[in-house]
């Protein structure tokens, strides 16, 4: 391109005028992506709301089979990881590479802890047969009177499973961020990827903020 400015920073793509246009475009697209994420979960929330209104008693009783303590721990873990993620961006804005990497590693570890606790929860459910759909087999004294509890567990597993999948994807992205920040690819001049992945990570937190009361704290 004849009009390409040789002084432009290396991260500026040739089809953008300036870095600010590129930054704003990425951010706008990221929010458009968040919109699609919200609507993906929307389908599941609709299923939840419809079935909860059809089976109010079953939902109240089936939720007692979930472990509130693990749920609360996970809430705290995820909120803290959101904070460390935000601080990683804050640190890179201040050009403090070391702190930024430290915060990213912390976020990664919290994410791992979240999945670990989730694993414990799931494995208990697998053991006792509180499984989705036709695999449901738990008929303990606290559940034998329930009307179609397999639907509750289907929705529980699909929603938390899809959320868990997002956590896992987020971990992969954060691992890549740790690598690029450590290598010095991201600086206070150009940290768009970290900001974008940050938004994604906060969305994961945001969805959990709703999942937690809806599954663990039904009145």
């Amino acid at each position: 391109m004849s009009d390409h400015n040789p002084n432009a920073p290396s991260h500026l793509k040739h089809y953008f005028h300036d870095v600010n246009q590129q930054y704003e475009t990425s951010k706008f697209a990221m929010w458009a992506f968040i919109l699609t994420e919200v609507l993906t979960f929307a389908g599941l929330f609709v299923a939840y709301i419809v079935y909860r209104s059809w089976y109010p008693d079953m939902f109240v009783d089936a939720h007692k089979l979930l472990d509130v303590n693990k749920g609360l721990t996970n809430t705290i873990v995820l909120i803290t990881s959101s904070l460390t993620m935000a601080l990683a961006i804050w640190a890179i804005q201040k050009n403090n590479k070391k702190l930024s990497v430290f915060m990213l590693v912390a976020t990664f570890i919290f994410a791992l802890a979240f999945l670990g606790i989730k694993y414990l929860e799931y494995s208990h459910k697998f053991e006792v047969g509180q499984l989705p759909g036709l695999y449901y087999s738990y008929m303990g004294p606290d559940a034998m009177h329930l009307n179609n509890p397999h639907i509750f567990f289907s929705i529980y597993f699909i929603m938390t499973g899809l959320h868990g999948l997002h956590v896992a994807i987020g971990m992969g992205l954060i691992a890549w961020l740790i690598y690029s920040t450590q290598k010095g690819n991201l600086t206070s001049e150009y940290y768009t990827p970290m900001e974008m992945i940050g938004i994604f990570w906060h969305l994961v937190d945001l969805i959990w903020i709703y999942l937690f009361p809806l599954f663990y704290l039904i009145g």
Partner: protein
Amino acid sequence: MSEHHITPLKTYLIIASLLLFLSGVTVWVSYVDLGPLNIVVAMLVATVKASLVAFFFMHLLWDDKKNLTLFLMSLMFFGIFVTITLLDTEFRGDLGLNPEVKNPINNRAAFYDTLPLTDTHGHPVDGHSDDHDKDKDHH
């Protein structure tokens, strides 16, 4: 890119502590019986938390308002989806017409009829000694 807004550290820390505090509140409230209000309170608290995350952690407060618009749009379409679907699922057999259409014919899925009773660990117990098992649990 020095022109980007940099949120002060203090703000982040205050927001995070607020979020943790509200998580505690929502668990505490769930043990207080407020009847149908429980779900309302839980959702209100969750929405306050979600707004804190969106406005401060996700920087929506300082961003281009187009981004906020996109986010609000997603909530609006979610609202449309829920509301209109509920217009059907909540109102079948309404107007007092044809009450037989309101509920399914068989409420419980057939596969439960063949499921053996279990104890709290998911191990099958003998169906005939059902009553004894219940007694044991009361001890």
